[in-house]
Structure formats: structure tokens, C-alpha cells
């Protein structure tokens, strides 16, 4: 199965929460997804990984995608079952090239702010894929 069809299958029954570009509003989808992950038997390690990733991804959508413009929304779609958590987060910004984000661990960049969030998401999730010109991120955490 290729990536596209696998994502389509995963996304057939996603729940949707739309929030304004307000960091405090990020708690609603975060709490909803974490509760479902806990109910479905995800470990505390996995729940930590999902929480950290949601903070990083929604913060990026609000700050870098929507530039904190409160007229723009962030759409969080998700599905949780006993095997995996699937999350799609979309902003209404201009997009970006994720491959152009420099490696934040290089000695010459270690004191600079950019790139650590993406690095952490990739480290803690089973899959991280940017789509739609970087305005949408697809995240998967398998229950292993």
C-alpha cells in the first residue's frame, strides 16, 4: 500500500475540531486526543509523545502558519483506536518547505530557535509527513 492510499484509509472517519489561532485554544483538541489515547490503552510514554507533538504542531500552525492571525483557523482532525493515533493539523497560512528547515543540532545552529519542534515530533512519533505545501502535517503514533 502506498503512502497516499494508506493515509486515505486512515482518514475516512476522522473527528474534527476547529480552533482559532490562540494558543490557549490548543488545549481542547489536545485533551480530547489524549483522553482517547488513554482509554485505548496507550502507554504513558506514548501519551507523553502525543502531547509533546500536539503542542509542537499546533504551536507551529498558529505561530508560523497563521502568524497568530485570529481570523485564521487551525483544523485538527484525528482518529484513535487501540492500534494507532492519527492526527492531521492544517493551518491557513502560506505554507513552507519542511526540507528547508535547517538541522537545529548542528554546532553553528545549536543556539538558534528554529527546527527543534520538528526534530522532536520526528523523534517521538511513528510517522510525520508534511502535505499541502507544508500547511498540513500528518502524524501517526502506533500503539507498540
Amino acid at each position: 500500500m502506498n503512502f497516499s492510499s494508506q493515509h486515505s484509509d486512515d482518514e475516512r472517519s476522522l473527528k474534527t475540531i476547529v480552533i482559532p489561532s490562540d494558543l490557549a485554544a490548543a488545549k481542547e483538541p489536545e485533551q480530547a486526543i489524549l483522553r482517547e489515547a488513554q482509554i485505548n490503552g496507550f502507554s504513558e510514554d506514548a501519551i507523553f509523545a502525543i502531547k509533546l507533538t500536539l503542542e509542537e504542531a499546533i504551536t507551529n500552525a498558529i505561530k508560523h502558519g497563521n502568524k497568530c492571525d485570529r481570523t485564521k483557523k487551525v483544523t485538527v482532525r484525528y482518529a484513535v483506536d487501540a492500534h494507532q493515533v492519527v492526527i492531521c493539523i492544517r493551518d491557513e497560512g502560506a505554507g513552507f518547505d519542511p526540507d528547508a528547515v535547517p538541522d537545529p543540532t548542528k554546532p553553528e545552529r545549536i543556539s538558534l530557535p528554529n527546527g527543534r519542534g520538528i526534530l522532536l515530533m520526528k523523534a517521538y512519533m511513528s510517522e510525520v509527513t508534511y502535505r499541502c505545501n507544508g500547511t498540513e502535517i500528518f502524524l501517526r503514533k502506533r500503539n507498540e
Partner: protein
Amino acid sequence: MSDARPIPADLVQPDAPLQIEMSEHGSTVLIKVSGMAAVEVVGQFSRALQEAAARKPRLLAVDLSGLSFISSTGLGGIVAAHVTCRKNDTLLCLINPKPFLREILDLTKLSSLFEICDTVAEAEQLAGAG
């Protein structure tokens, strides 16, 4: 990730409030942080670090033993304080971070940037402060 990393049980609950205490003794400024440095409150943490760094102590000790969550935004606050401290010849030292935070510091290679000590006394010895 690592099997040995104990995770706070309250991650699914609303975030534990972030608490920050700052004290000064001798040439050391100590900041004690507890709770969750979630993104909507992490500005408090970054401002406290900058305020402490602006005092230009010999040692800025940041006690993270009670911190149960931080994201890259909070890490950025520590890095910014570290840059300020370096300009002022202040040693910024992280005290007793929990295993989850040590793992994040290792993943981001920030563990190579910061001094990390188990106790304030150890940090004071390192800085020649007291």
C-alpha cells in the same frame, strides 16, 4: 523511546500550573521551576530566566527537578537565557532535570550546550560561586 523514562501520570489531566520561585544568595541566583511549561504559560518561564540572567550572577542555577513537561518553546527560553548568561560571564546550570527532559536535551543535543548538575552545591562548585 527509552523504557526507563518515568512519565508523570497527570498528562491527560489539565496542565499542572507552572510555578517559578526565584531566590538569590551570594553570587548565585536560583530559579526553581515546577509543573508544566506548556506553550500558553511558557512565556513566564522565559521572562523569569531573562530577569535572573540580567542580574549577572556568577551562577544561574535552574532547578528543573519539579518540571513535568516542556516543549521546544520552553527549550528556546533556556537557550536564550544561556546566550545572555554567556555574554555576562554567568554560568547557567540546569539542576536535576527529570529523565524525560534529559532525553529531550540529548535528542536536541542541547545537553552539549548546557552544564547539567545533580545539585545546586555541585553547580556552585563548578562556577566557583557561593
